[in-house]
C-alpha cells in the first residue's frame, strides 16, 4: 500500500490554526499532504519506490482525461500515452500548440550545477523556498530541482534550441534575485520553444492513435462517481454540443486565473472555469490570494485595452525608474530637469535599486501612481528611462540587448524608447495559488490530479522568475506519469461509469442548466462589462496592497455584482454553434465566485508574506510574516445553499496544511 491511499488526516501542528478574521469563515481540519517522512532530499526517490506500476498489457484498459495542453498538460498527456494509457486531451484553443506556456519569455531554471559558481541542488531549494517566503513545501522544491536535470535533457532532445556557448555547451543566464547562473533559455522566447516541443510530442501520440485530441473544446463540469473524478463534461466550441468523456482519472492542467483581474499578462482566453467547477465539487483551493504582480508591463493606454503586455524584467538592468516629483506634472519627460525627478526605487531601496524584486518594485510603482505622480495620458504609469545607459554604453549596445522588446514597445505605443522613456506599470501576472494538491499532485477529490500553474504547489507565496516553466514541465513529464500510474494501479478491474449512469447524467444536466441559464437572463450588460467591473474591484481591494477595509469593501462589491450578473447579463446568440459571448459569460460567472474567495483568503490570512501584502503587517515597506500562527497553506472548501440560483451566497471553510522546514530555516527577506 502506498501513502496515496492513506486517509486524509493530519499530523499535529504546534499551534492550531487561528480563527478567521473573515466573517462567516469556518475553520476546518488539518490536512495531510502525504509528503514522505524524513529527509526531504530523498523524499521523491523513496516515494517513487513506493508507487505501484501497471503491467504494460493492462495500460490500454485505462482512460485518462487531460484538460489543458500547455507544458504540464501536453507533457502529461504525451508521457502517459507513451506508457500505453488511453488519453483524451482537451484544449479551448484551436490547436494545442497555443496554450499560454507559449508566452513565457525569460527562461527555465535547472539545478544542473555544472559550473564552478557553486550552484547546487541545495542552493536551488533555498532560493525557491525563500523566494516563496516560506509558504511552499520544502520536499517539493527538492523534487523540482532534482527533476529539472531531466527536463532540460528531454526538452533539448525533443527540439528546444537552447542557447549554446561557442564551445557547444548549454548557456545559462542570471535571473531574478538569484546569485548564480542557472537559467536556460532560447532568446526571449523560451516558453514558446518548450511549449512547441511538448506540443510536437503530443501530436506524435495523436498520430499514433494513443491520444484523442479535442481542440476548441471547453470543460464545463466534472463527472463524479462515489466521490471520485471519473471524467469531464465538455462543450464543443464549434458545434456548441455538450458531451461527456468518462475516464479513470482526470488531470487538470488549465493554467492560472490571473484573468480574474480582467487586465493581466495572460492570454485573454485563460480562465478558471475547469478548476472552479472542480472546486465547487470538493477540490480544495490552495492559497487563492497568492497572486504575483509583474512590475514591468505596458500601461493601460485606452479604456478598451484587453490585456497588458509584459516587457521583460531584464530592461531594469539598464533602465532607471522615475516619476516627476510634483504630482500631476504634465510636462514632457525631457522637459523635467534632473532635480525635479524622483528615482523612487533607488531612493527607497539603495542596495538593490532598480533591481529590487518583483513584488517590492510593483508596490513602489503603484504607490507613486496612487499618490498622483503617475505619468502618461492616463497618469497610470512610471518611467523606465534608458537615457543614462544609452549615454554610458552607446545606443548600439542598448539596441542590441533589447531590440525585440524595444521594437514591441514601438509597435504597441508608437513611441521610440531610444528617445523617450518607456512607460510601465505593474499588473497581474502569475497565480501561485490554485487547486490544492498533495505531494502526489492529487487534489482532495480522488482521481483528480492537477499540474502546472493550476495547482498550488511549489511556489508558496511568491514565484521565482524562470521557475514556472520548470514546475509545469516537471509536473507534466516527470511527476504525473508516476503518480497517475500508481493511482490507476489501484483501479484495475473497476469499470468507468456508463454514459447513461446517474454520475454522467447529473454532471451533464448541471452543465446544460448553467449554459441555458446564461442564455435566458437576457439582461442589459455584456459579460465583458461585468468582467471589467470585477477586475476594478479586485485591483483596488485585493491587488498589490490589501487591507482589512479594502478587502471587506471588495467582498461586498463582488457579492452585489454576482447577484446583478445573474439578473442582468446579456448573452446574444444560441447555445449551438460558435458563440464567444456565451463562452465569455460562463467564464465570468465562475470568476465572480472565485474573486470572492480570493478576497476572503486575503482577509483571512492576517499576515503579509511574499506577494500577499497586508498593509497592517509591514516593517519599512517589507512584508512581515507571522510564522507562529500562519505557517500553513490554506486549502479552501466552498459550499452553496440549495437555493443558490436566487440566493447566491457562498460559504467558505478554511482547512490548513502545516508546513515543515527541515534543511532550510525560515528567515526574513531583506532587500534594503
Amino acid at each position, binding site marked *: 500500500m502506498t501513502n496515496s491511499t492513506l486517509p486524509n488526516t493530519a499530523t499535529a501542528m504546534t499551534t492550531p490554526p487561528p480563527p478567521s478574521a473573515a466573517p462567516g469563515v469556518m475553520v476546518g481540519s488539518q490536512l495531510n499532504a502525504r509528503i514522505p517522512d524524513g529527509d526531504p532530499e530523498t523524499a521523491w526517490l523513496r516515494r517513487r519506490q513506493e508507487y505501484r506500476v501497471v503491467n504494460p498489457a493492462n495500460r490500454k484498459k485505462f482512460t485518462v482525461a487531460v484538460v489543458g495542453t500547455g507544458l504540464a498538460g501536453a*507533457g502529461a498527456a*504525451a*508521457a502517459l500515452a507513451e506508457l500505453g494509457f488511453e488519453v483524451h486531451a482537451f484544449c479551448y*484553443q*484551436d*490547436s*494545442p*500548440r*497555443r496554450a*499560454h506556456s*507559449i*508566452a513565457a519569455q525569460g527562461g527555465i531554471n535547472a539545478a544542473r550545477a*555544472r559550473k564552478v559558481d557553486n550552484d547546487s541542488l541545495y542552493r536551488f531549494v533555498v532560493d525557491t523556498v525563500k523566494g516563496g517566503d516560506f509558504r511552499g513545501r520544502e520536499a517539493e522544491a527538492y523534487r523540482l530541482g532534482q527533476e529539472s536535470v*531531466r527536463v*532540460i*535533457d*528531454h526538452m*533539448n*532532445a*525533443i*527540439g528546444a*534550441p*537552447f*542557447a*549554446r556557448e*561557442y564551445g*557547444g555547451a*548549454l548557456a545559462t543566464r542570471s535571473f531574478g534575485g538569484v546569485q548564480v547562473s542557472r537559467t536556460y533559455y*532560447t*532568446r526571449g*522566447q523560451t*516558453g*514558446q520553444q518548450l511549449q512547441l516541443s511538448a*506540443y*510536437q510530442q503530443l*501530436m*506524435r501520440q*495523436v498520430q499514433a492513435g494513443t491520444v484523442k485530441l479535442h481542440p476548441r473544446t471547453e470543460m464545463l463540469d466534472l463527472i463524479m462517481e462515489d466521490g471520485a473524478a471519473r471524467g469531464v463534461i465538455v462543450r464543443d466550441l464549434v458545434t456548441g454540443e455538450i458531451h461527456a468523456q468518462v475516464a479513470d482519472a482526470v488531470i487538470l492542467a488549465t493554467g492560472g486565473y490571473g484573468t480574474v483581474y480582467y487586465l493581466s499578462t495572460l*492570454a*485573454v482566453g485563460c480562465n478558471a472555469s475547469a478548476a472552479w467547477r472542480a472546486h465547487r465539487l470538493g477540490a480544495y483551493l490552495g492559497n487563492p490570494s497568492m497572486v504575483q504582480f509583474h512590475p514591468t508591463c505596458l500601461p493601460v*493606454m485606452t479604456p*478598451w*485595452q*484587453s*490585456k497588458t*503586455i509584459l516587457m521583460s524584467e531584464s530592461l531594469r538592468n539598464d533602465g532607471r525608474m522615475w516619476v516627476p516629483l510634483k504630482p500631476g506634472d504634465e510636462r514632457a519627460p525631457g522637459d523635467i530637469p534632473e532635480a525635479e525627478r524622483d528615482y523612487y526605487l533607488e531612493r527607497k531601496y539603495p542596495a538593490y535599486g532598480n533591481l529590487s524584486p518583483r513584488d517590492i518594485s510593483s508596490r513602489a510603482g503603484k504607490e507613486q501612481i496612487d499618490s498622483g505622480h503617475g505619468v502618461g495620458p492616463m497618469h497610470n504609469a512610471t518611467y523606465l528611462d534608458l537615457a543614462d545607459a544609452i549615454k554610458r554604453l552607446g545606443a548600439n549596445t542598448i539596441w542590441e540587448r533589447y531590440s525585440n522588446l524595444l521594437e*514591441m514597445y514601438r*509597435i*504597441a505605443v*508608437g513611441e521610440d524608447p531610444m528617445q523617450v522613456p518607456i512607460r510601465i506599470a505593474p499588473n497581474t501576472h502569475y497565480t501561485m495559488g490554485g487547486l490544492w494538491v498533495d505531494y502526489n499532485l492529487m487534489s482532495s477529490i480522488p482521481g483528480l490530479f492537477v499540474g502546472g500553474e493550476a495547482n498550488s504547489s511549489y511556489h508558496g507565496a511568491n514565484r521565482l522568475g524562470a521557475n514556472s516553466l520548470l514546475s509545469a514541465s516537471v509536473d507534466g*513529464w*516527470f511527476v504525473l506519469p508516476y503518480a497517475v500510474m500508481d493511482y490507476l494501479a489501484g483501479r484495475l478491474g473497476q469499470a468507468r461509469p456508463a454514459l447513461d449512469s446517474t454520475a454522467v447524467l447529473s454532471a451533464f444536466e448541471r452543465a446544460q442548466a448553467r449554459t441555458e441559464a446564461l442564455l435566458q437572463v437576457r439582461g442589459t450588460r455584456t459579460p*465583458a*462589462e461585468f468582467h471589467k467591473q470585477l477586475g476594478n474591484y479586485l485591483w483596488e481591494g485585493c491587488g498589490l496592497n490589501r487591507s482589512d477595509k479594502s478587502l471587506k469593501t471588495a467582498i461586498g462589491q463582488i457579492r452585489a455584482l454576482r447577484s446583478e450578473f445573474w439578473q442582468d447579463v*446579456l448573452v*446574444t446568440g444560441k447555445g449551438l*454553434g*460558435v458563440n*464567444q*459571448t456565451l463562452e465569455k459569460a460562463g467564464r465570468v460567472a465562475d470568476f465572480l465566485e472565485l474573486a470572492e474567495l480570493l478576497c476572503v483568503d486575503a482577509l483571512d490570512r492576517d499576515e503579509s508574506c511574499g506577494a500577499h501584502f497586508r498593509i497592517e503587517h509591514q516593517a519599512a515597506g517589507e512584508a512581515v510574516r507571522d510564522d507562529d500562527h500562519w505557517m500553513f497553506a490554506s486549502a479552501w472548501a466552498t459550499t452553496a445553499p440549495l437555493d443558490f440560483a436566487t440566493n447566491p451566497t457562498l460559504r467558505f471553510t478554511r482547512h490548513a496544511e502545516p508546513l515543515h522546514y527541515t534543511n532550510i530555516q525560515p528567515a526574513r527577506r531583506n532587500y534594503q
Partner: protein
Amino acid sequence: MKLTLQIWRQRDTKDPGHYETFEVDQLDVGMSLLEMLDRLNEQLVHEGKEAIAFDSDCRESICGTCGVNVNGRPHGPRPHVTSCMQRLRSFRDGETVRIEPLRSGAFPVRKDLVVDRSGLDRIIAAGGTVALPAGTAPDSDAVGVGHDQVERALDFAACIGCGACVSACPNGAAVLFTGAKVAHLSMLPIPAIEKVPRAEHMVAAMEDEFGPCSQYGECALVCPQNVPLTAIAFLQKERLKSLLHPRV
C-alpha cells in the same frame, strides 16, 4: 478617429457568407485592430445582435491564434506584425477597411472570421516530432551544438503557426510552415536523426491538404516571425534527399 468596416459574416461552414458594413467612431489610434473588434462586438451585443466571431488569445504576437485579412493582406497593413499587435494608427481617419478571415482553400471558415487551421497540426503530427520517450534523453551537454547553429535553428523554430503564409500564397501552399519545421529539427543533433522519414512524411501530409509552391515568396513577406524564405529551399533539399535515400 472614424473607420468604415466591411466585415465578413458567415453563420457556419455551409453558409455562403457576405460582407456587413459598420461605421465605427471615436476610435483611439492606440487601440489594436482586435480591440476595435472587441468594441464593435460590445455594441452589437447591446443591440441584441450576435458578436462577430474572431480568434485571438495571447494578444502579444506569440501564440499564433489571431489572424484576419485586412484589405486583402494577412494580419494587417503593418508587415511582419500579427493582427493583435496591429494598431489603428496604421489607418487613415475615415478609411474603409475590409476585414476577412485568413482566406485559403485549406482553411474552412467555421464562423465569421474564425477558420479551421488544423491542417497545420496534421503536418506536424506526420513527422514534426521526435521519437524519444520521456526520460530517455541523453545528457544535453554530451553532444555539443555550435552557438550559431542553434541560433539559426531558432530562426526557423520561431514560427507561430498562424497560417498567414498559407493565406498570402496564391497557391495556398504551406511550404514556408513545413520547411521551417523541417529546417529547425534538421539543425539539432538528436532530432536530425529522423530527418529522412520526417521530410517524406511531412511533405506527404502537406500535399494532401495544401497547394504547391511556385516560389512567389508572398509567405515570407507577411510572416510575423520573419521566418526566412530559405525554409522553402531547405524543404526541397531534405525532400530530395529523402527520395534518394535507400528504402529499408
